[in-house]
Structure formats: C-alpha cells, structure tokens
C-alpha cells in the first residue's frame, strides 16, 4: 500500500535529490543532539548543555543514525529493500518527537522562547527525512523471496531480538519522568519503524511465522526473566501484575468478542464474581463464609460460579440477535455491582459487607510458598508483586492456550461461520446457539479464574472496582489491539494499563486522551494494531492486494505443518 502525497511530476523531477535530502536530514538530527534543546536546565533531564548529549538528545541522535543509514541505502538502491517506506515512518515520527519535546519544553518552562536551537535543527531534519521518503520511489518487496537462513541462525535472531526486547522494556519502565517516557516511546516507534519498515520487519515476521515454537518459548522466557531485571523493586512489578490481570481478562473477553462475535458490555462482572468468591472464602477476618478451602478449590469454585452466571444470562439472550446480548450484559454488569453494594445484611444476606467490601485478604500460600514474602533467587530479591507476577503469567499462558486451541479447532471454525453469516452457518449444521453459549461461558470461566487471584493480589474487594468503565476499558483493549488475536490483545492491554500509570501528568485527562485515541484508531486502523488477516479483509474488502496476500498464505500453508495453519500470523510492521 503506497501512499502518494506528492504529485507524480514533483516526484519525477525531484526524486533523484531524495537521498541527499535524507542524508542532510540525518546529519541535522545528529547535529541537534550536540546542541542545546532547552534554556532551562531543571527540566527533562537537563537538555541545556551543548556537546554533551543527555537522554532525549541521545534519542535524537539515534534518529540521525538511522536516517543516515537509510540515506545510504537509498543511494545504493538494493532491489530488495524499500528505504522510502522506512524514511517516511522515521521522518513522520521524528516530527511528532521533536514537536512533542519543543511543546513540553515550552509548557514546562513557561514559553516557546525557552526552546533552544537543537529542537529547531532537529525539526528541519525530520521534515527533510519525511520529504525524502515521499520523494523516493516505492520498491515492491516480497520477503518470501529473500534468502532463507539456516534454522539455527533464525532461532539465534529470535533470541537476540527477545533479549533486546527485555532490556528495552526494563529500560523504558525505569524512566520516571512522564515526558521523557513518552518521548522514548515515540522515538522507539520511529526508530524501529524506520528500520523495520524497509522490509526487515516483514522478513522478521516471516522468520517468526516459520519458528512459532521457539518464538513463543523465547517470549515467555523473556516474560519470566523480567522480574529479575527489577532488582527487588516493587514499583514496576506492581504495574506489571496489573497489566497481566488486565491482559488475561481482556484475552478471555476476546474469545467472546473476537472469536464468537458476541458483544459483552458487562464482562468485568465475571472478574468480580471470581474476586468476590475468593474473598468470601478467604481467611480474611471480614470474610462472610466460614468455609476456608484450599486456594485451588477456591479458584475452581470462583470460575465455576462465574461460568454459571454466564450460562444464566446467556441462555435466554443468545437465541435472539446480538443487540439484545449487549444490553442484557450491560444490565448484568450493573446488577452485579449493585448487588455487591447491597448484600450487606440490611437487604438480604450479609455476603459482601456492602460498600466497604472485604478488606484484609491475606496473601496466597501455595505448597508452603508464601506470596507475601521476599524470596531471593540467584542473588536477586523477588518481592511480593513478583510472586503474583509469576502465577499470573502462568494463568495468562493457560488462557492463551485455551484461546488458540479453541480458535484452531472445529469449534473455532464454527465461530468463524457464525460471525460471517449466522443463518448460513445454521444451515450448514453449526449448532449456533450451543457454540455461542460455549464462548460466553468459557469467557466467564476464565475471567472468574483471574478474579480469584486478583482478590489476593489487591488484598481487598469492593463494588467500586467493578464499574461499567472497566468493562469498557477491557473491550477497548480488545478493539484497540485487534479482535481475534492474542498478540493484539496483549499489546492493547499493555498500552491501556501502562500508559496511564507512567504518564501521571496526563492522568486527569486520561479519558479524554483515551477517547481521542479510539476515534483516531477507528478512522485510520479500524481492524486494530495487530489484526488477524481475516479481520483486515472485513474492513478493507476492496483491497485487492490484501485479498491476494491471504490467498498466497493459504496456498503456502498447504505445504506446511498443519500446526502453523493459524489465521493470525505474527506480523511485523506493515
């Protein structure tokens, strides 16, 4: 998909200048790192010193390095790479990056006058890079025709990339200043996009698709190693556990929404069911039920209760069209919250302590392992949140397994048929009601499971944790990331949980920013950040190229291991 902003005549006459423009842009960016960006030395980690680049100035220099590399590539014109696309991404993100920093400097030090020459030089550089990207000819690349590496080498590449990922994540989370954090994220998108957009991204996606197992293994290894990079600090681990709970729940919701195509607006209630069951059966002094079974039993009871609620509200509504389900689930979510609010003994039985909720839920203890204590592994202390992190990671793996198994089974094919045309699916012998009910109750079950752990991790449950907004956030994570894919939901959930935590400055405007983000997404990428190919086709039916791509993959898949016949390939940057 090529975007032509400039008219062909301009491209024809000025095209040959593009590499030099790119080179100039890259050098300006490099230079800007040596210049001062801010008159005020107290903000953004001191950008006022010349010839001694700090944080943000270093990021700018990285833009320059990539810019120069792409300029050289553009000069040599290898037929198998498209530096133009990389330059466009690099340049456009570069503009966003520089404008963001200049604006932050102006805002924090009280006036645009405080933005020094470095930012303006970088801005010119970014514009030049973008211009060069738009002037250069597009190269049609097919990564499938790139030389194949030996499988060992491919796995080495995966491992190296995952290691880079681990350190990048650890580094990113260590940035305390919200503005610097955001600028690093923008820089990361630009730098990675600039490099990968040339075609390398597609190639890496291709390598990944050919090595799904090692990739998955390496990804989980990285996730397991993450707490060891935190040196016993709980600050980031607390955020990480929240992200994990959110992601696990969102992935459960994705079975309902993304696979079976059912709109559930009260999903948070199932998480709440699990949490409340765990709280009531815990050994907290405020627990309302005297029975205290072992946690494994509690998990099963919590999940089963949630699934039962799912069946109860699903069976009357799933026979009729989807709109009713959305409204009924919306109502159920509120009923749940109000019921928890009111079951305090004054109205009905005392189960939940009403608005006070159930506090002082003790930490988990499994097989003699106390989740509340700090454990030291290989000299590195792992705190309370790390312990929960590990168990939540296992749960996430379990939910991912359920998700992919269901998706690639006969049941998954039935869901596809229901999503496509429910009437026709019925005529084909698909038990539409049964399959929809299954999706709904499996989703509820998994949320209930996550809820039981959440109760212990939060140490308390109360009705105000389970408001409609939370359901809306979960749904947004699914839509933002990409309906029907695992990776998409993980990305969506991470963005939605991590950014508000790190960007405390914009916390008051959280919903405003979030709403804007969704509107922009729906306009430019309605299929989500990491969509499945099929979803993409739903939104871009007229796209001949995409339809052919789907076809090529289908034909290629015929000659591959059936294990790899999953509809959502890990995609690189497009």
């Amino acid at each position, binding site marked *: 998909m090529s975007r032509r902003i400039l008219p062909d005549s301009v491209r024809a006459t000025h095209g040959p200048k593009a590499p030099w423009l790119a080179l100039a842009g890259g050098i300006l960016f490099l230079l800007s790192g040596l210049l001062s960006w801010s008159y005020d030395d107290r903000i953004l980690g001191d950008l006022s010193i010349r010839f001694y680049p700090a944080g943000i100035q270093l990021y700018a220099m990285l833009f320059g390095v990539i810019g120069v590399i792409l300029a050289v590539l553009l000069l040599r014109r290898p037929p198998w790479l498209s530096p133009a696309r990389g330059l466009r991404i690099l340049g456009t993100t570069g503009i966003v990056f520089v404008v963001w920093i200049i604006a932050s400097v102006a805002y924090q030090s009280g006036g645009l006058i405080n933005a020094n020459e470095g930012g303006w030089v970088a801005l010119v550089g970014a514009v030049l890079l973008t211009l060069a990207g738009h002037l250069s000819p597009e190269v049609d690349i097919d990564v499938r025709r790139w030389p194949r590496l030996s499988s060992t080498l491919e796995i080495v590449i995966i491992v190296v990339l995952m290691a880079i990922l681990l350190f990048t994540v650890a580094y990113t989370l260590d940035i305390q200043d919200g503005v610097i954090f955001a600028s690093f994220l923008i820089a990361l998108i630009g730098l990675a996009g600039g490099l990968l957009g040339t075609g390398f991204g597609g190639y890496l996606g291709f390598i990944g698709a050919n090595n799904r197992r090692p990739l998955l293994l390496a990804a989980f290894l990285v996730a397991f190693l993450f707490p060891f990079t935190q040196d016993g600090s709980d600050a980031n681990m607390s955020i990480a556990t929240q992200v994990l709970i959110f992601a696990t729940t969102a992935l459960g919701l994705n079975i309902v929404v993304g696979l079976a195509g059912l709109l559930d607006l009260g999903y948070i209630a199932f998480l709440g069911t699990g949490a409340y069951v765990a709280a009531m059966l815990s050994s907290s002094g405020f627990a309302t039920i005297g029975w205290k079974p072992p946690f494994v039993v509690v998990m099963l009871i919590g999940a089963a209760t949630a699934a039962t609620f799912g069946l109860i509200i699903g069976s009357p509504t799933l026979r009729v069209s989807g709109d009713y389900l959305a409204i009924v689930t919306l109502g159920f979510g509120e009923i749940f919250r109000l019921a928890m609010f009111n079951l305090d003994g004054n109205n009905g039985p005392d189960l939940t302590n009403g608005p006070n909720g159930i506090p002082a839920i003790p930490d988990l203890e499994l097989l003699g392992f106390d989740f509340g204590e700090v454990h030291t592994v290989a000299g590195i202390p792992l705190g309370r949140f790390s312990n929960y992190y590990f168990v939540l990671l296992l749960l996430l793996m379990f939910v991912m397994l359920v998700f992919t198994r269901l998706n690639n089974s006969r049941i998954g094919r039935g869901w*596809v048929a229901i999503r496509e045309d429910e009437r026709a699916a*019925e005529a084909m012998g698909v038990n539409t009601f049964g399959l929809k009910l299954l999706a709904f109750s499996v989703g509820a079950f998994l949320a209930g499971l996550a809820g039981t752990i959440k109760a212990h991790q939060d140490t308390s449950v109360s009705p105000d944790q389970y408001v409609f907004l939370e359901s809306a956030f979960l749904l947004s994570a699914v839509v933002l990331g990409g309906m029907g894919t695992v990776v998409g939901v993980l990305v969506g959930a991470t963005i939605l949980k991590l950014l508000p935590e790190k960007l405390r400055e914009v916390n008051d405007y959280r919903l405003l920013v979030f709403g804007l983000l969704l509107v922009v997404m729906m306009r430019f990428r309605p299929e989500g950040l990491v969509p499945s190919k*099929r979803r993409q086709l739903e939104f871009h039916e007229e796209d001949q190229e995409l339809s052919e791509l789907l076809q090529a993959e289908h034909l290629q898949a015929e000659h591959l291991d059936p294990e790899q016949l999953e509809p959502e390939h890990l995609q690189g940057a497009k």
Partner: protein
Amino acid sequence: MSAMLEVKDLEVAYGKIKAVKGISFDVNEGEVVSLIGTNGAGKTTTLRTISGLLRPTSGSIRFKGKDITTVEAHDIVQLGLAHSPEGRRIFPRLTVEENLYLGAFARKDKGIDADLEAAYELFPILRERRAQPAGTFSGGEQQMLAMGRAMMSRPQLLMLDEPSMGLSPIMMKRIMTTVTTLQQQGTTILLVEQNAQAALKRATKGYVLEVGSIVLSGTGAELLSSDDVRKAYLGED
C-alpha cells in the same frame, strides 16, 4: 416403501400471516422433485421449515421415516438432509476451501477430504480458485460453491433454493446439468424454482405452489404440458 421425505399438512406462519397453508407432498429416493411458484408462494418458507430453521404451526415432516418436525437444524444436517439456501449465502470472506470445509461441519468421519475432491471434480473452477475469498466470485461461481458446500455434508437429500436466480442462461444450464449429474450419482433432490421450464424439464415430479397452497401436481412432463402451467409460468397464451 415409504417416501424419503414426507411433508403432511404443513402450516407455517410469520406472526399472524400464514405463509404455508397446509401443504402435503412426498419426495422418493432417487427423484428430482420441483416446487415451482411465483414470489411469495411459500417455497422458501417450506424449505426453511423442512431444514429446521423455521418451526411449523402445525403438520409434520418425516425424513427417512423419522419425525423431524421439532428436531434442531444442526441435527437435521447430520441426518443427511442438506439445504443450499436462497441467495446462496456463501461465506464471502472465507476462501473457497474454507467454505467447503464448513459444509462438512456436521460430519466427524474421515471421508471429508475425499468429498472435497468430489466437489472439485464436480466444479473444477472451485479447485482452481480454492484459495480465493468467495466474495470475489461471480453469481454463477457462488452458486457452484453453494452447491458444492451443501454436498460436503454428504446428503441423501439435497434441497436447492432457487439455484438459477440471477444467473446467465449459460450458467443456469450448467447448474441444471449438475442437478442431473447429482441425481445420477444417487442424491435425491428437492428443487425450488421460479424458472418453471428449467425446473420441470428435469423433474420426476413437480408441485405448483400458489399463495401457500399446492394447486397442481404431477410428473415434470405432465406439468410442462399442462395449459395452466404454460399460461401462468411460461408466458404462453
């Protein structure tokens, strides 16, 4: 020998409006039976009721001697009764092959791949385009896919709802020839059509429906030569 499909005094209503007003007919094994009639005669409603997508207000449907009046649609497919719905209703964003596999959704045996081959034999164009999203097909190709997909459930009785709708004369001929081929291969066929000429020419038996009731019946040849049919459906006076 009892008939493969026996429909008795079938009545179907949408709310207060009766679409089918007590019709009875039989389909014997190996036959091609045509139901013809104009728009709104109740043909599609009849088929949808037989395949379990609609519930009758009264009357009974027996398939291979078993009463299926209240059996769920997905169980009826498993009994060997396939329905190729009106307007083809292929899954537009799935590939041809995925569409065909979904036709075999109700089956759990090992012969599915062999039947896929059979469907490709029947319509070679489907094999050529097996990886293409079905929504990019022409009407005739979609109809072939719809028939191939219905055959994937390995039915004993295949119900086709207006397969010739919106097709060019050549494509229509192709589809109707396939109906005969399927009959020769041992599939019993219940054909619903507005195109009386094409439907009756190949039918062993035919029924004429008018506003919910059967007004005429006989062999295909009899109906074709009947003055009433010629006047009403073939535009002759």
